[in-house]
């Protein structure tokens, strides 16, 4: 993927990481982030 796409992924993936009330995402929520930036297909399946 392009670094530009990776940047978009990284911002969506890590944006809430330091929030004081952080809680873990579900696998479905994480999968949705991958799909939002166009990462679909078996290689990108988390489960």
């Amino acid at each position: 993927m392009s670094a530009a796409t990776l940047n978009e992924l990284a911002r969506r993936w890590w944006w809430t990481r330091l929030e004081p009330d952080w809680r873990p995402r579900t696998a479905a929520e994480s999968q949705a982030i991958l799909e939002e930036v166009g990462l679909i297909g078996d290689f990108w399946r988390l489960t």
Partner: protein
Amino acid sequence: MDELDLRIRNETYSSFVASGHAPEPADVAAALDLEEHEVVEAYRRLHDAHALVLEPDTTRIRMLNPFSAVETPHRVEARGRSWFANCAWDALGILGALHTDGAIRSQCPDCGESVELEVGDGELVRGAELLVHFVVPARHWWDDIAFT
């Protein structure tokens, strides 16, 4: 991950960002009015839950993703401070987690070539044309997160 583990995890991250280094379990225990063994036990549970990464067979923190607690070739500069990341994704993720722009100096793990990226207003303003190769399929990322 219960509420105690979340409190310990969140305090550990907060301490890391404030100081720039991983806290000792005793420091986190003191901050949260807990016993040190409670933090140590929580660290092992958090490691198993992939909420942080410990060095093998220890309770020393190696990763507080996207931050690396140890020196790596992936350096992030932001807000007058520097951080180590575990990879390109984490390097950009550090800027995302800090909600800030900054610069990344890294090294291609394949050819060793120096790589520089810069984020401005949330967008890549330097290095956007570079390509990133993912070797490990997503379902196997945590088989060996250090390799991934």
